[in-house]
């Protein structure tokens, strides 16, 4: 089994690295930009909603829009795959704390924002995209399974697809069992074109690459860190990487550029 796709667009956000250009400069030259914002401001949302959006929604929409812009693809036309290990941990903490103290006080907005596909929902609404959107989790194999689903969508007939990986910081007592620090997002627009920067996927037994690259070390504490070997490989122009795809399983990603 080998599946292939062309990478048309890349989006990235991590604390101190508010975009793919900044991430590449950091990975190649060790340079952190000055004055990086503490939180992404997703331009897809109306101004009054940008601050109110949950962190996971803010980062997912920011990197998704950046990847679509780089790909010069109309966001309305793209099916999308949203991959997050935990969803919004701060909202889970809020829901469980409120249910334990005063269940009737649960906020209706926080409740509908608690669904795992909240970012996917805000994305399709903001972009005006009636194309399909999905939201998945596969523990520490979440990004690899999202990448596999995105490329399987191309194999099943989609012209291009958006993949977004993201996780947020855990808060409250939940942080002891679901440790995740900072905010992290990465997005790819993948297509059936057969030129440019290409990736080929293969599942195999094995262990994923250790988190040795500069981006992997920079955001090591985030639950979506298992995606970072791919972004490190893309930044450094390496030939590929091995992503965790399940217990004892890897997704081998080979990168070529022509």
């Amino acid at each position, binding site marked *: *089994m080998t599946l292939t796709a062309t990478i048309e667009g890349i989006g990235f956000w991590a604390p101190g690295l508010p975009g793919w250009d900044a991430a590449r400069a950091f990975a190649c030259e060790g340079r952190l930009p000055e004055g990086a914002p503490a939180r992404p401001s997703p331009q897809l949302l109306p101004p009054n909603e940008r601050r109110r959006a949950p962190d996971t929604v803010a980062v997912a929409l920011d990197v998704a829009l950046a990847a679509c812009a780089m790909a010069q693809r109309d966001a*309305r*036309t793209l*099916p999308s795959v949203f991959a997050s*290990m*935990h969803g919004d941990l701060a909202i*889970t903490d809020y*829901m*469980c704390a409120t*249910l*334990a103290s005063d*269940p*009737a006080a*649960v*906020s*209706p907005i926080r*409740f*509908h924002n*608690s*669904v*795992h*596909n909240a970012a*996917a*929902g*805000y994305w*399709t*609404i903001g*972009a*005006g*995209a*009636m*194309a*399909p*959107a*999905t*939201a*998945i*989790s*596969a*523990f520490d194999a*979440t990004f690899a*399974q999202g990448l*596999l*689903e995105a490329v*399987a*969508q191309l*194999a*099943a*007939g989609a*012209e291009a697809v958006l993949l977004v990986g993201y996780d947020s910081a855990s808060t*409250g*007592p939940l942080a*002891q*069992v*679901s440790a995740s620090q900072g905010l992290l997002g990465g997005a790819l627009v993948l297509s059936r074109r057969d030129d440019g920067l290409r990736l080929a996927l293969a*599942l195999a037994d094995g262990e994923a690459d250790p988190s040795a690259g500069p981006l992997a070390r920079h955001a090591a504490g985030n639950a979506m860190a298992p995606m970072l070997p791919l972004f490190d490989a893309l930044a450094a122009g390496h030939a590929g990487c091995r992503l965790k*795809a*399940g217990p*004892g*399983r890897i997704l081998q990603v080979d990168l070529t550029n022509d």
Partner: protein
Amino acid sequence: MTAPAVQPAPPPMTPLAIRAFTATSALGRGLAAHREALAARRSGLRRNDFGPQPLETWIGRVDGVEDAPLPADWGRWECRNNRLAWLALQQDGVLDAVRDAVARHGAERVALVIGTSTSSIGATEEAYTRLQPGDDGAQRFPADLDRSIVHTPHSLGDFVQQTTGARGPCVTVATACSSSAKVFAQAARLIEAGVVDAALVGGVDTLCGSVLFGFNSLQLVSKNRCTPFDAGRDGLSLGEAGGFALLERARDGEPGLQLRGYGESSDAHHMSAPHPEGLGAQLAMREALARGGVAPEQVDYLNLHGTATPANDRAESLAVAALFPDTLHASSTKAYTGHTLGAAGIVESVIALLALQTGRLPGTLGATTPDPACGPQIRFDDAQREARYAMNNSFGFGGNNCSLLFARA
């Protein structure tokens, strides 16, 4: 109004055989319990008796989950949601069928694609009611719930992987109430792309405070038994359920039940309210039919999402009327099981498959007064007829829609 994005016609899909399937819900454990309850028009709903401060409403609760702990080897995954998964997996030969697929194809060639909305968040909720101060003074989970895997959405997929031994892609799909319909689409793609030869799909959701008080906060919960498509409907009844199906490529000319099409779309409208004309629902149904090469007039039965909220049922009936002739038999079975959220896709697919097997097409239990806004396709009474094609609609928060097309070959 946003015009629907023009979608190119999807390529036809290879028919997938449904080798085994099952559901466990408030109607009981397994297919026989569901067949019998549907034939007797017997609701599984009861007055809410879940949790320490039960809201005034009706629920579809699965009996006996409290008395069915997981086998000791799987203690790490212990929680209500995985208990229900385990109960459901043991019915109707599904577990044997997936283990047989592992033996025939190899463990790496069998995928697990499982849907849920809230997974085992009930365990996290419980931990927050029993927090204990640690040595550092910070509030900590009690020792029996200090297990990371049950506090994350993939708790369900990971547990199913333990029970089956499959080593192909293992994914938890969590798109709210469309979750366990979308698993069929994702599994079909994995088989189509040659990644695997078989896939166990399904979904499990259990009652918990998050959904009872959350849906209540949105004023979407009825105080009474839900009455889908009735003129006086005033909200949903929540439920819990689990179900599974094993999919493999169908052999040429092979008789039996098949998945023939799937359609997915987004409303691009609102986080918790459907598009008023059901445009996203229409797109999903059209795509499912197109993938299967089946015309709307060929469809014998459609199991509706039909939650019994005023907005959903109106929008869905408009979408159905825009697409299907008056002769379609469409119904909601939510008053049998309650709205089982992330499990609704699989449970109602199972009901559609039973309709293909028996020719008994369920009516809309609970509804007595037709809503003039809903078209003639919406049936309150049961019907008996030879059925070749059946569909199932599942729609979720975020405007996430999925429609499935099944056939009896």
